[in-house]
């Protein structure tokens, strides 16, 4: 465990973009933790006249029912971080198990997993997610489950490919020769080598989870009881914010989504580059 930590720090400080990504994530995590201190108001409370332009009292103005937009924004970071971490985490467990089984066992299991991954890739995922969310009803946890369901295939693909190359390595063969059981080889000897790659993909998957949740909320399919950045954008759009020149109302939550997504992407790419050095800028 300590070596993983040291490796992580090493990766970060050698890679400027990765460090930038990490800093962005750190900043938003702080915002989420310190939301009660940073926000001047309860985001659910009506604290001023509707459609107030930005002022000292309301840095980003107020929304169509008079809630403080800056406070909404600060609390929104919690939702995005929550969605961004839980959805790919659930997907990774599912995908890793299927990828391990598929790569190690081969045969019919492999045929089935490969076929299912192939189909998942070809599914029109966004329209499907939209329709499922419309039928299942607006709830944040429903959305997370839907996102996880559409995310497992990427993990299964990556893990399977790794397992296929690892299982022929001498040390695995040696383990098999001394009589280690299938599950023991899979979880004890192969899984640890796949974990860095899984971590990269969880971090990268966070971006698409955050973007999709925001998109669903923007369409009105999000959880109306939870203030997310997509939800703020929806109110802004429904309240014709741009028409009235209240562009900060749209700009700031969208920038939040973009920055947080970029943070996850940069960090994910730094980890991936460490695992797969051919992606580097310079020839060595």
């Amino acid at each position: 465990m300590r070596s993983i930590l040291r490796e992580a720090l090493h990766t970060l400080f050698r890679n400027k973009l990765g460090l930038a990504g990490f800093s962005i994530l750190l900043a938003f995590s702080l915002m989420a933790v310190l939301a009660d201190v940073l926000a001047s108001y309860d985001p659910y409370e009506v604290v001023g006249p509707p459609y107030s332009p930005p002022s000292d009292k309301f840095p980003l103005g107020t929304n169509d029912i008079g809630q403080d937009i800056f406070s909404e924004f600060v609390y929104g970071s919690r939702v995005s971080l929550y969605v961004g971490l839980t959805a790919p985490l659930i997907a990774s467990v599912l995908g890793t198990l299927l990828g391990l089984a598929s790569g190690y066992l081969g045969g019919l299991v492999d045929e089935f997993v490969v076929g299912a991954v192939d189909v998942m890739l070809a599914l029109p995922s966004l329209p499907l997610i939209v329709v499922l969310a419309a039928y299942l009803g607006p709830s944040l946890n429903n959305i997370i489950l839907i996102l996880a369901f559409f995310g497992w295939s990427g993990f299964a693909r990556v893990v399977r490919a790794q397992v296929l190359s690892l299982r022929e390595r001498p040390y695995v063969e040696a383990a098999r020769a001394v009589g280690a059981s299938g599950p023991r080889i899979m979880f004890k000897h192969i899984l640890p080598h796949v974990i860095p790659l899984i971590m990269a993909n969880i971090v990268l998957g966070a971006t698409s989870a955050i973007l999709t949740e925001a998109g669903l909320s923007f369409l009105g399919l999000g959880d109306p009881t939870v203030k997310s950045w997509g939800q703020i954008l929806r109110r802004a759009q429904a309240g014709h914010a741009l028409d009235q020149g209240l562009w900060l109302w749209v700009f700031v939550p969208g920038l939040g989504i973009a920055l947080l997504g970029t943070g996850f992407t940069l960090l994910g790419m730094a980890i991936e580059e460490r695992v797969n050095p051919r992606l580097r800028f310079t020839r060595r």
Partner: protein
Amino acid sequence: MLRHFLLSRLLRMLVVFFIIVLLNFLLPRAMPGDPASILANEYNLPVETVRILRSMWKLDRPLHEQFVAYIESLFTGQWGYSYKYFPRAVYELVMERLPWTLLLQGTTSLTVSTVGMLLGVLAGWRRGTRADVSITVSAILVYAVPYYWLALMLQYAFGYVLRIFPVAHAVTPGAVHASFLEYAADVLWHLALPVLAVTLTAYASYTLMTRNSMVDVLEEDFIFVARAKGLPERIVMKHAVRNALLPPLTMLAIRLGHIVGGAVITETVFSYPGVGYLIYESIIYKDYPVLNAAFFMLAITVIAANFAADLLYAAVDPRIRYVRRG
């Protein structure tokens, strides 16, 4: 090999199609109230009409017979009636929207893949130079930008402040066009912002993919040999590009699917009268028959785009390296 490739892709297309159809069939039936009784409540239909609708849609029959009837109806266009715009037929509502989606998504797919691949080739070819770093870093930065947000900001800048481009609709509402050319110009003018917004964000994944593929190919022996033979760089580049574009082309299918699937959000931001906007409207009005039909149409478009890209790939790659590469 070619036959194997095409057959496997055809099979995948059929499985995807079947999943879509099955979901479309099951989801509405898992909801309380059948279409006939909802229409009856909403519009005070006479009992006799409801009875006729029920038997027409076989709602009084067991589930498997309903499924057969449903499949039949898919091919005959008997998709039921809109809850919101009754007595308008769902089929009609969807079909008048489809051309706009095809126009918008077709144009966007073209611009996204062209811009994305060109920049990717350039970055990979100039690996390690300032051009590479700036193209790659900006692609990474743009990668996570929500396209609907960029669309909204472009609307603000070009629509509300500068007033150069329209922020909604596919043609100027109520306008009478003197000639076809004038009409076409109006359509293009309305196309500008949505295409721009999606292109400026979606090109990034193509660029990153093409660059990495280019970098890989340039390290291969045949490039080394080509350089050793003293071939001009222009020719070497041609060899490299031909090979480097194959992986992005396989991904083209999936990416096209994502772009077309994004229609739901793009069209909503611009009130663009396509199938995606129809999905949004039917969610708002809880118009489930229209929601299902519009989703079906969009899904078919995605599947067709996927298959077209697969065919393109088969045509471009002489080897059809269809190796199951995990």
